[in-house]
């Protein structure tokens, strides 16, 4: 009886976790939708949002970011958080274009900033970052528990 009750509780927990994951995904999608209505810049913070790409291989999550006007890898700050990756990069000079919108051209942007939601848990050990031709690439191994199954 005790075992059955625990089993039901475990089922409920699993169901609750799945619901939680569904809500997380739904909110992430809604936030992405909201986000697309905004331009890729924050005038108040004087920072630009870089274009990023997130893709998965069977054993890693790869995030790339386009960082024009960033010349030195020392100007790039990457923080791996629990479920996300924070990228900040200082530009080599303040960015402002004469032929820009009325709001933007009154601002000098000094930094790229972006928080990227990760599609799965990653292992902070073994994360590698490279910066070449203005493209930042961060390769993060997925946190997976592997069990080998022998073919009978």
């Amino acid at each position, binding site marked *: 009886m005790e075992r059955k009750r625990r089993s039901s509780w475990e089922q409920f927990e699993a169901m609750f976790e799945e619901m939680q994951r569904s809500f997380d995904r739904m909110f992430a999608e809604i936030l992405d939708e909201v986000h*697309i209505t905004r331009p890729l810049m924050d005038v108040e913070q004087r920072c630009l949002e870089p274009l990023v790409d997130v893709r998965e291989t069977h054993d890693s999550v790869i995030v790339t970011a386009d960082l024009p006007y960033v010349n030195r890898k020392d100007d790039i700050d990457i923080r791996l958080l629990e479920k996300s990756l924070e990228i900040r990069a200082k530009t080599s000079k303040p960015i402002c274009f004469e032929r820009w919108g009325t709001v933007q051209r009154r601002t000098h942007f000094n930094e790229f900033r972006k928080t990227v939601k990760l599609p799965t848990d990653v292992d902070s050990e073994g994360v590698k970052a490279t910066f070449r031709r203005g493209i930042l690439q961060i390769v993060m191994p997925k946190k997976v528990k592997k069990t080998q199954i022998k073919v009978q």
Partner: protein
Amino acid sequence: MSSAEKITVVETAPLKSEKPIILVGLPDVGLVGIISVMHLINTLEMQEVGYIESDLMPPIIIVHDNKIFEPIRIYAKDDLLLLTSEIPIPTALVKPLTRSIIDWAKEKKPKLIMTLGGIPTPNRDDIEKPECYSLETDDEAKKYVENLKVEKLTEGIMVGPYPVILREAQKKGIPAVALLAQAFDKYPDPGAAASIIEVLGKLLKINVNVDELLKSAEEIRVRTRDLMRRTDMTMQQMGKTQELEVPAMYT
């Protein structure tokens, strides 16, 4: 199509071109087409001669130098015509718009229609100078590219406005070429545009310097981020990732 949904090519200046070459640069992979045609418009000092009008278009105007422009415009200089768009072409508009453009183009009796774009290349950041590839609709079109030293696109899948332009041109008997450079698919790629322009220079027998384009590459990458993001979303709706796949037919 009802009259309210009609797509019209409006000419705002007389087109004196005889048997023109028509270049098409639309938002696509790495914005290669857009970046290429913008450089050509500026360098060759091409003049705006028309635009596309349709109730199917999003309610958008573009403002440059305190003047109002339609997002899809036509430019001309001598026997060169150029069609470009400052917005991604909405999926629902691709086929009707393309048919209208090809109907209009046929009236101009063009020698050639050439679309300018990029091929998504996963290892693009390893490539110093992107290579160009071509796909032609007929033997006449092949003659224009045979001496340009570009690789042939022999197998693959193309998605978006460009393949529709090629197919419609082929059906109407207009020679057409897709010129594609290896490119970042999700990031604006001025380097790929420079490769396209160098090939075009040989085709058109004009000298278009790409040094200025490459010098302003970082500025272009910053300025076109929003268009790239919107283009990427539109491309995803069209199933653009199929371009990384291989066709199933093997015989």
